[in-house]
């Protein structure tokens, strides 16, 4: 008899899908930014800047093109003169320092003229099927003026300030997939370079970073003939900041299949690496080199928010403990990565566990990178309810996902303290206090656990072998819940296994889970419901991008 391969299985959804753990996720080689830079390097993408019509005051437009094997995409950037008092990262803002669209192809003068009437006003304008994304960015007041001032006087900016802020501009929204008239994802998803999630958005931000560097140099030169350019090593440290608000939290609840695909791919990758019997020297040394570089990155991670400060203190303790453990631990022993993950589960907090879980994937591109093709959601049939499914099976699916929620008293005010709603004002997603504000009647269906328990209750009295169609005909208010329950058949990681409307829910946990898959680093929550991050810090600029530096740029060179 052939022995069954004793591979390590994926961690269970009960373990993974808790908000505290999701809110401790770290980027990995599966992240969308790194997928993009790897692809662009492997395929030898060619970049150019055919237009840079920007005046000495920083006002004008520029075009950056990225040419892949089959198609060209162009960032059309509009640079504005924004008075300081108008600068806001909120969705309700109406003006920005710079605005952008990612154009499908190379824009003509006519296209640019059309975009110039629409892109600068963002939500108040319209784009077309030729545009893939619409976005905007604001300058970091602290770093922007300082940098231009220093460069103009012939000096480089203060390295401490660069480290502290990390970016010269931050995006405050990158809209894609049909928003404000842009092309639908469905029309683009069969292009290899856009098949993985958020690739158009990631390309947009990558090109915005280049534009930001160029604009900084341009403005410094216009201020003084003695100006110097930003030193390449400093420019490389700089990423693009991003302010992310509540809107991302509903996204992961509203896209259970897509979210499942991200999580299950990472979990499968972790299980595969844990199952590796022996790590060869090259793999061990790559891991050891990257964990040191990662420690440097964590050392540069600061937050002024008490929640994140506590998490960072825990992470720093975890990092120290991991290095102590690795001093004595023999990575050439059998199943080294499984040992390391198991040790972490018993000795580290969630921050440290997830940090290591992402890091062990690094030496195993050949084993895990192929999984990234499963991260998109192409299953349009997931929407269709199977009405022939038995009530008994639906009950089982609901209990599988939400059994934990049966213990919760869903009438207790603290457990239903919050309500997610959309404001009339620019349709901003918000989280309100159910018992203090008149928002309950506008509540969005973003409490799947509460709704699942309500559906289970309504199912009382229905025979197990009755088709669910019968129930749905009488109880259409539970239709969205039954649909989700059925999705669990192929999306076991689609549901957050925590209460999303309790008085102590932290929306930033949901934001971090999503942003970690983008590849973001240095999460810096500014409240319990919005967060600043950095994207592409350390990445090579287009002219330097090659297969040697396309992958591990996220880890800075280790300091001594």
């Amino acid at each position, binding site marked *: 008899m052939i022995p069954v391969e004793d591979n390590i299985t994926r961690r269970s959804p009960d373990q993974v899908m808790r908000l505290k753990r999701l809110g401790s996720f770290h980027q990995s080689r599966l992240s969308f930014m790194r997928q993009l830079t790897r692809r662009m390097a492997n395929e030898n993408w060619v970049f150019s800047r055919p237009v840079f019509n920007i005046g000495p005051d920083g006002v004008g437009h520029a075009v950056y093109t990225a040419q892949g094997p089959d198609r060209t995409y162009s960032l059309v950037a509009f640079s504005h003169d924004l008075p300081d008092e108008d600068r806001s990262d909120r969705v309700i803002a109406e003006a920005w320092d710079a605005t952008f669209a990612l154009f499908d192809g190379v824009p003509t003068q006519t296209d640019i003229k059309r975009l110039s009437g629409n892109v600068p006003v963002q939500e108040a304008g319209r784009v077309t099927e030729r545009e893939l994304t619409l976005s905007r960015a604001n300058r970091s007041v602290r770093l922007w003026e300082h940098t231009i001032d220093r460069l103009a006087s012939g000096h480089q900016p203060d390295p401490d300030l660069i480290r502290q802020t990390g970016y010269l501009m931050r995006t405050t929204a990158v809209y894609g997939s049909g928003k404000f008239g842009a092309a639908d994802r469905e029309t683009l998803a069969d292009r290899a370079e856009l098949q993985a999630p958020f690739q158009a958005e990631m390309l947009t931000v990558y090109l915005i970073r280049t534009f930001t560097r160029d604009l900084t140099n341009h403005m410094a030169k216009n201020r003084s003939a003695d100006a110097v350019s930003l030193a390449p090593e400093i420019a490389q440290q700089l990423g693009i900041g991003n302010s992310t608000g509540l809107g991302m939290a509903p996204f992961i609840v509203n896209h259970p299949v897509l979210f499942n695909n991200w999580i299950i791919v990472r979990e499968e990758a972790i299980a595969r690496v844990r199952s590796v019997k022996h790590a060869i020297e090259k793999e061990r040394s790559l891991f050891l080199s990257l964990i040191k570089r990662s420690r440097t990155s964590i050392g540069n991670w600061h937050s002024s928010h008490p929640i994140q400060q506590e998490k960072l203190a825990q992470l720093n303790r975890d990092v120290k403990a991991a290095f102590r453990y690795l001093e004595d631990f023999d990575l050439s022993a059998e199943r080294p990565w499984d040992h390391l993950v198991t040790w972490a589960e018993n000795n580290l907090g969630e921050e440290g566990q997830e940090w290591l879980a992402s890091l062990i994937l690094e030496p195993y591109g050949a084993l895990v990178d192929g999984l990234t093709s499963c991260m998109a959601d192409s299953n349009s049939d997931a929407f269709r309810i199977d009405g022939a499914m038995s009530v008994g099976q639906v009950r089982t699916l609901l209990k599988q996902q939400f059994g934990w929620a049966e213990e919760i008293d869903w009438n207790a005010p603290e457990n239903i303290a919050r309500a997610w709603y959309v404001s009339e004002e620019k349709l901003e997603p918000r989280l309100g206090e159910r018992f203090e504000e008149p928002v309950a009647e506008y509540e969005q269906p973003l409490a799947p656990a509460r709704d699942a328990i309500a559906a289970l209750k309504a199912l009382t009295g229905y025979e197990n072998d009755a088709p669910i169609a019968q129930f749905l005909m009488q109880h259409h208010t539970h*239709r969205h819940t039954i649909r989700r329950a059925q999705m669990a058949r192929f999306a076991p990681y689609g549901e957050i296994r925590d209460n999303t409307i309790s008085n102590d829910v932290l929306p930033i946990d949901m934001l971090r889970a999503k942003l970690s898959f983008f590849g973001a680093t240095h999460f810096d929550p500014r409240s319990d419901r919005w967060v600043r991050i950095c994207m592409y810090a350390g990445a090579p600029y287009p002219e330097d991008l090659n297969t040697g530096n396309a992958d591990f740029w996220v880890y800075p060179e280790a300091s001594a």
Partner: protein
Amino acid sequence: MNLSLNEVEGLAKKAARGAGYSWGLSEEAAKAARWLCSFGHHGCAYLADLLTQVDQHLLLLSPPVLDPNNWSAQHGQLCPITAGASLADHAHLLQQAQSISLQAVAVPTLLLPFGHLISRASEQTVQITWSDGSSVMDGTSFTLTGALPAGGDDLVVSKGGSMGLMQETHTRATPTQNEWDILQSFAARTYAPATEESRQRGAGDGSTRDD
């Protein structure tokens, strides 16, 4: 207007919810409107018409009365979303029955997308016929013979039927401003009026949003 199909689906879902449909049925209404637009039909116009009738209490959202292969409304006409969703849920019944008749369907074009769902579920073609025409769906596209059904028409749904000339697919929707405005006004009922407190707290009191 020239809109992405995601815009249509997004607004249609909110509009249906604003008109009083449950979230689950609003999702069905949104997919139905999108599906029609994706074949160049006036999905937004049909939905605007339907929601207006619902709003004026000309149409009730109560479930159809099953007799058992002859479905009708408890009062007045059948809602195409409520009946369509139920019909798709009961796709398995079509295995046994020769056909299911739907009596007096309001805005019946909105029922065609549910035939598409049934054909995907059963991996067979589905035929829907009415007095002046018929349609066959194969789970990917559909064909249309004669005129689209008119309000109040009886529809007969059955398995089988052969595909004729396929409807052309579209990547954009082109509703009139008026149709879009109607959907906007229903959707607006799902938005909470802004108060200074919600503006400050609801998205996270943000110290230093502009540093």
